[in-house]
């Protein structure tokens, strides 16, 4: 186990509750989740479908707001931020890797990786191009810079998505079933890549997965059942 005393807390969730619906039917999805992630942690989030994994991930990713509870991102309380401030914080602090890569089809691999940087700085620059090319080289796609996503294999698309998540050098990367759509060999490759990046850059990873094989390889496993963390 990592030495907890010397590490910085990236994310601190306190008593996060989420319910959907109003008036008549109210569905409680999260029942007071407490969770903290330390810098450099490589954590798996597992649980059966319907357990609230996706909701929790969306809340951590600042895509959804909790009904109550506090979420501190790098020691900063997010509950009071405006929509626009949340969006900017999300762009800076969180990298997403989705199950279905979700690259933008009309942009090349290189441009897709540049996208978070272009959004932050408002326009493309040579420095962004250089960084994106470097990241693509890191994920083994140095010869695919100008390929559109449709011309890449599933594994390659996911590699581009990982490079994109790394573009702004965020402290936290959220991966939602990053290997769910890949065959075993490709899934292993992707998982290995995520782990390597974690080791190299010290980026914190939270990976939602169904695959117990992958979860086992994570240093920390959080299990969510019926909206509560059970381990």
């Amino acid at each position: 186990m990592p030495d907890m005393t010397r590490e910085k807390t990236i994310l601190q969730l306190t008593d996060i509750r989420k319910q959907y619906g109003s008036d008549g039917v109210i569905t409680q999805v999260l029942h007071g989740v407490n969770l903290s992630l330390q810098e450099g942690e490589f954590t798996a989030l597992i649980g059966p479908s319907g357990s609230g994994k996706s909701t929790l991930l969306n809340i951590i990713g600042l895509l959804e707001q909790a009904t109550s509870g506090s979420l501190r991102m790098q020691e900063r309380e997010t509950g009071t931020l405006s929509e626009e401030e949340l969006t900017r914080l999300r762009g800076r602090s969180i990298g997403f890797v989705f199950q279905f890569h979700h690259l933008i089809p009309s942009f090349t691999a290189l441009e897709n990786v540049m996208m978070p940087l272009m959004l932050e700085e408002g326009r493309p620059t040579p420095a962004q191009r250089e960084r994106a090319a470097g990241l693509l080289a890191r994920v083994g796609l140095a010869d695919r810079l100008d390929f559109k996503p449709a011309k890449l294999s599933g594994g390659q698309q996911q590699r581009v998505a990982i490079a994109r998540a790394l573009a702004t050098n965020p402290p936290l990367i959220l991966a939602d079933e990053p290997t769910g759509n890949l065959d075993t060999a490709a899934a292993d490759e992707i998982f290995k890549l995520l782990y390597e990046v974690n080791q190299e850059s010290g980026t914190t990873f939270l990976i939602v997965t169904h695959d117990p094989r992958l979860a086992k390889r994570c240093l920390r496993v959080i299990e969510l059942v019926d909206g509560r963390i059970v381990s």
Partner: protein
Amino acid sequence: MRIEWLLALRFLREGRAQTFFMLGGVTMGVGVIVFLTSLITGLQRSIIQKTLGTQAHVVMRAPDDEARRIIRPTDSLAVSASVERRAQRLRSILQWQQVMRDLEQRPDVTAVSPLVAGSSFAVRGSASKSVALMGVEPERYTRIVPMSTFMKEGEFRITANDAAIGMDLARDLGATLGDKIRLQTADGRDETITVVGIFDVGIRDLNHRWVFITLRSAQNLLDLVGGVSSIDVTVNDLFKAETISEQLAGQTGLVAESWMKTNAQLMAGLRSQNASSFLIQFFVIISVAFGIASVLVVSVIQKSREVGILRAMGCTRRRIQHIFLLQGAMVGLVGSLLGCGLGALLVTFFARTALNPDGTPIFPVVLESRMFLVAAGVATITGILAAAAPAVRAAKLDPVVAIRNA
């Protein structure tokens, strides 16, 4: 290039068929508007030109003589009388030189010309024709009616006992340049003049009747020594002639009549033509806007996944909105440029095919750069407005829903 522009361009390029349909709609809409506008402008201009070719913008003359009652009715006295209108004699404008100087001071008046007009007979040999005498100062009058451009023979340079007459009168009298003609008025005054110019103003009646002589000759013949019967005025803005004429009447105490009043029916015709053309253009623009909006609404739905991804990566709602507004603006601008080309093509084609029997165009079509600029501006703004609703919709997309459902 800013990221909004980049994304807007890519989205447009990606949705090829949609972009094509939107551009097609704008192109045709703007093409029709350009065609219609230049046609109507050309038509109206040629009508006005023909009308004003031989008319002053504003004519000022002395107020009419009025019959006055000898006994006026009061509260206690009723007067039974019929008041007959007086016969109007030729009167001079009082202090017309001063009036002219005053008029010339005005910035909206570009030319002023005195006129002594009356009727007489033109006699040569056994031929005698009733004519309209036009006593003018040629240099000044040319700036009211461009007589020098109407000259068929000789010149519009009248001095002493010279005269310029219409081609039809010349034929009737059998007169050519250098011939002498006797002008004779009803009260027996007469003068012999020399023909120095023969004109064709394009209106047969005027070619029959107009005889231009010097101011002095006309004053002598019409017993109006030192006076003028009217003052012709040219103004800088044709369509302000009525307003200006009212001001001139107020300023001078004279009667002022603008071409718009003299040709009231023509004006009404032009106005209703303008109104209907405006209406057509308005509805063309509306339908183009609907076209853009409906295509963009679909495009927002198709692009919702991309929108969701962009939002997740830190793209603000405002920026998403701009991306779709820009698409509308680009379609509007590019479509309007193509539409201007289409319109110009149609107009040129029309001008080449719609010909008078003699091979000249029925009327000159007018293609002005101003019209193109206005069309481009209106189309761009229309594009932005049409994109407003889809853009707001895109900005409101919940990234979670957008990503999950796509």
